[in-house]
């Protein structure tokens, strides 16, 4: 390859390609192992869900007790898939937007391997019944400590890349990513210290209150900003249009930063903690609709009008689905925080369904959009199969709809209605929940099928078995004799190259 490139456009393209290449292995490692953990999490979720409508399922061993599989299911979903997908997107987006090659890919890769090893150990411990039992911090203390330590070996380089960025303007995605880089250790350390370390000190209800805050904060101050950063990058990048309103984008950021940390304790309404705390959190959870609407409108208006990009680009399709998921998440979150509604939802399955909707319907959709964009760049190969992408999209949509609309909203209120009736026995509530538990299992099975093929697709791409083409893999129905559309001018370019070299 030539070393001297003088055209500014070519120079920038080369720089971007160099950034991509420098991050190939850590990014592909995070995405692929994240997708594998997502599949594991869905299998554990299916086992847990089946046990609610068929209690005798897999009762041969204590490893698969509902309480244990539920903990392992949530842990793998959060730390296996969620955190790793987010890390991949964070390091790539920050390097790209700051125009800085990664110089510490080796360290990130090693930290990623230890992260997975620690998680495997933690999941086995949970299934043996030796987890901590604290919501979303189910791993034994030593595993959580290792994960927090590893984060600094993964995230620090992105902060440095931002400090030494090229170009003066800071794009909105960088705002969100930089914030999440600081919020993640803050939230995780707070949860870890107050729910797993300083247990004997202070009021015992403080653990419950901190745990409730921790769950919400991890969702709203880590997963949400990363997903929004990716959406703000993908939508303009694919459509070629600027962000609809940049002022609205800045407003959305500050609204999330100000409102987000107050949410979480509304689920402890009526618990013996100072009684203003749940009300404060409930108010904040409703206010959260404002940044959610600002972001979602901005993304949807940016994508609107490029109907061909919407129809053809998997990245944009998933991102738009993620923006709708953001509205769904904030809408359910606000609804179940209204004190008049809360009596039906506080102790029902709505709470779990809300978490699933947020992670699978909003965060994961945005991550898929980013992954479909990033992987061809870091591997310099195009996605192999349009069919695999298409099944991934539609099965994800069906799965999320089954979980969000049928299980969470309808099922949750049916369940909560029976719980609220005095004199009804618990068995009635469970028989009422039965069809919705089946819809949860069905949704999980849809997602598991799509995730399995997605994971295989990613693995093949990492092995660089993707297509060599100058045309992207788009969701078109082969008008040019190839399942992917026109294959481009690679051969022509090679010919030109050899002709020129010969001269």
């Amino acid at each position, binding site marked *: 390859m*030539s070393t001297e*490139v*003088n*055209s*500014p*456009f*070519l*120079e*920038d*393209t080369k720089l*971007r*390609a160099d950034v*991509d290449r420098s991050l190939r292995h850590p990014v592909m490692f995070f995405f692929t192992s994240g997708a594998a953990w997502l599949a594991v999490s869905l299998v554990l979720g299916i086992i847990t869900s089946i046990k609610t409508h068929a209690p005798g399922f897999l009762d041969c061993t204590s490893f698969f007790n509902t309480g244990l599989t539920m903990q392992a299911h949530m842990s793998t979903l959060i730390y296996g898939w969620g955190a790793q997908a987010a890390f991949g997107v964070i390091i790539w987006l920050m390097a790209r937007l700051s125009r800085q090659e990664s110089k510490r890919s080796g360290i990130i890769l090693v930290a990623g391997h230890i992260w997975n090893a620690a998680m495997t150990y933690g999941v086995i411990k949970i299934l043996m019944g030796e987890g901590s039992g604290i919501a979303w911090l189910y791993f034994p203390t030593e595993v959580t400590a290792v994960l927090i330590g590893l984060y600094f070996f993964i995230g620090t380089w992105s902060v440095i890349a931002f400090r030494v960025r090229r170009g003066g*303007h800071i*794009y*909105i995605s960088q705002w969100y990513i930089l914030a999440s880089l600081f919020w993640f250790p803050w939230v995780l350390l707070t949860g870890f210290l107050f729910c797993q370390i300083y247990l004997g000190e202070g009021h015992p209800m403080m653990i419950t209150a901190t745990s409730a805050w921790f769950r919400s904060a991890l969702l709203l101050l880590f997963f949400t900003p990363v997903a929004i950063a990716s959406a703000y990058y993908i939508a*303009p*990048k694919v*459509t*070629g*249009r*600027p*962000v*609809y*309103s*940049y*002022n*609205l984008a800045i407003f959305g950021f500050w609204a999330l930063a100000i409102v987000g940390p107050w949410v979480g304790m509304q689920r402890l*309404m*009526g618990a013996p*903690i*100072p*009684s*203003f705390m*749940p*009300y*404060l959190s409930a*108010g*904040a959870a*409703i*206010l959260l609709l*404002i940044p959610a*609407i*600002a972001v979602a*409108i901005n993304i949807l208006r940016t994508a609107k009008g490029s109907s061909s990009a919407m129809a053809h680009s998997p990245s944009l399709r998933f991102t738009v689905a993620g923006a709708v998921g953001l509205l769904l998440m904030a809408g359910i979150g*606000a609804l179940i*925080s*209204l*004190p008049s509604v809360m009596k039906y939802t506080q102790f029902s399955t709505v709470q779990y369904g809300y978490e699933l909707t947020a992670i699978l319907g909003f965060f994961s959709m945005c991550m898929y959009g980013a992954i479909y964009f990033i992987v*061809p760049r870091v591997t310099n190969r*195009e996605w192999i199969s349009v069919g695999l992408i298409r099944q991934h999209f539609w099965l994800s949509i069906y799965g999320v709809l089954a979980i969000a609309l049928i299980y969470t909203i309808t099922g949750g209120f049916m369940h909560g209605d029976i719980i*609220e009736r*005095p004199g009804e026995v618990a068995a009635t509530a469970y028989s009422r929940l039965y069809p919705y538990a089946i819809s949860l299992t069905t949704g999980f099975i849809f997602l598991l099928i799509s995730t399995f093929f997605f994971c295989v697709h990613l693995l093949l791409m990492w092995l660089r078995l993707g297509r060599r*083409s100058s045309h992207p893999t788009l969701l078109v129905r082969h008008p040019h004799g190839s399942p992917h559309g026109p294959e481009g001018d*690679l051969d022509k*370019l*090679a010919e030109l*190259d050899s002709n*020129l*070299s010969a001269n």
Partner: protein
Amino acid sequence: MSVQPIDPKKPDLEESTNVSLQHADVMRSAGAASREKQVRENGLEPVSMWIFITGSIIAIIAGSVLFKSSSLLEYDSFVASGYTQKDDPGGATTVPSAEIESLYMSMGKAKYTGCIACHGADGNGTPGAFPPLAGAKWVKESPIIPAFAIIHGVKGAIEVQGSTYNGNMPSQGGDTMGDLELAALIYYIQNSFGNKVGVLYTPEQIGQIRKLSNERSESGQVTAAELTKYLGKKLDGDSFEPGTIVNKKTGEILEVE
């Protein structure tokens, strides 16, 4: 390529560079990166009025929820008003109920844990120190004697099963114990360790014992001499029929099987 250069300071081309060659090179090694569109960040479309209106409505709802809590930032107020589940409207209130014999046995056994240290789990006592309850006439012949022992304690020499014990049993809190609990404890020791008296005393009958206890001429712990006069003494009134279903909390009769 009609894309705007990133850095317009530099000249577009230089004579010395073979542009076609460079272009082909980049296209081949960075196909995806080279076809990307530039991100332009200065979108300044006007924000729809509806977003402001929706936002204001949301803020009003959120504020109304926030100020439902009358005690903002007050760390000593723990109870939110109106946060209790409504009563069952005219429904059949279920009362915790149990069959009297099993209730007395389980309740009495739980109470007896306070006696195990001296009288033993098997009721045989500690030879030479604490008398046995198993087979003792003091236990079997009248409910008044064990009740007095529990209420007041016992002191002085007492002959049990052919051995004489000279111990000092302090009061076991029989005064503060509920009538139902005391009845259960007496039933338990009269019907365990091989004892078989079989009478299910009612809380009202325990009331008779309390009356006797208040009319005592002596004070402090009871002695064997005082207890002797109660040997063989029965209580007035009907005791529970076996199989009676009672309220677990009050001992009120709910039905007789």
